[in-house]
């Protein structure tokens, strides 16, 4: 059945309309969850506000278990969906740099757009920085090509990497996420108590 577009259930001409609508939903939810505020976002790293962790992990958990069930019900052909290819060196370097950018800027790209939309000047500067950063990367690409293509493993999934089944990974992820939620509630209670 799914993915609807590549299986021909939806005319590709509708692609951009769908993109726009999904973007509206995405932006609305991010903003409504409070992701347009950099201080709320940064709170996850200092233990005073875990909204990022709660929203993000819940979203991953729901989407992941949803895909497992969609796959089981044969509603989606899981072999047709895009799997991000793994370049080990590149993704580790990128992740570390992104973490640094996150703690300095207090936004990530998607959330900075929502900040811009409601008139946060720091989000505007973050977005400008984003353009600058990508421009720097692209211009310096010949120098860093080795890192970018380093450690290629192809489009592997965690099932390939750890040799476990889809269902088991989803279950472990759920258990880990719920444990994290309980843990951060406890941390937040302590941190905010100390401050007050």
């Amino acid at each position: 059945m799914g993915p609807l577009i590549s299986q021909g259930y939806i005319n590709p001409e509708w692609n951009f309309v769908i993109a726009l609508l999904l973007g509206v939903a995405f932006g609305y939810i991010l903003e409504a969850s409070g992701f347009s505020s950099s201080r709320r976002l940064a709170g996850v790293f200092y233990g005073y506000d875990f909204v990022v962790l709660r929203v993000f992990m819940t979203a991953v958990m729901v989407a992941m278990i949803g895909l497992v069930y969609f796959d089981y019900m044969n509603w989606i052909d899981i072999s047709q969906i895009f799997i991000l290819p793994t370049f080990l060196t590149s993704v580790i370097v990128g992740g570390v740099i992104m973490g640094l950018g996150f703690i300095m800027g207090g936004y990530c790209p998607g959330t900075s757009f929502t900040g811009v939309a409601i008139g946060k000047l720091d989000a505007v500067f973050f977005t400008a920085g984003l353009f600058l950063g990508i421009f720097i990367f692209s211009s310096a690409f010949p120098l860093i090509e080795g890192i970018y293509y380093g450690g290629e493993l192809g489009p592997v999934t965690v099932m390939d990497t750890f040799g476990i089944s889809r269902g088991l990974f989803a279950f472990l992820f759920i258990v880990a996420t719920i444990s994290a939620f309980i843990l951060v509630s406890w941390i937040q209670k302590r941190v905010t108590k100390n401050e007050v």
Partner: protein
Amino acid sequence: MKNLEERSEQYINPYLGGVLLGLTVLLTVYITGRGLGATGAVKSTIVAAVDQVAPTYAENQAYYSKFLSDDHHPMNNWLVFETIGIFVGAFLSGLIAGRVKKFRIEHSPKITPKTRLIFATLGGVFFGIGSQFGRGCTSGAALNGTATMATAGLLAMIFIFGSGYLFAYFFRKLWI
């Protein structure tokens, strides 16, 4: 728990937000077979701009040429439309909740607005560079990648948040 609810009463419950966001991701994958993203549109804009200013350079440069095609303009891209949607959706949500105001800077009382803007820009630069190495940002790589169980997505998530915690100590003055 009570404390959190008082602080965020103007926002929706984070778990509700998470479930809705997860369903959006699921719907996106179900309809298009791919994920949501944010940096992709910025990249397309850069590619389009460079192609406009210096077409020969763009065609011969190893990175820009990857995203140039004779079939369509670089801005004619799924993620560009999706990103326009992000702005519209966020604006709608802010409008409904009364959060859309004229431009202001949100910063910790311990730092000046100027410091905040400098670090916001620097953060953006780093995020921009990192997102290209990671082949996606928090939405494209970490959120969708992990949801589709791509190893790269899981690694991106672990390293973004891990490195955030690692560097958090050095930048604590910016936030608390």
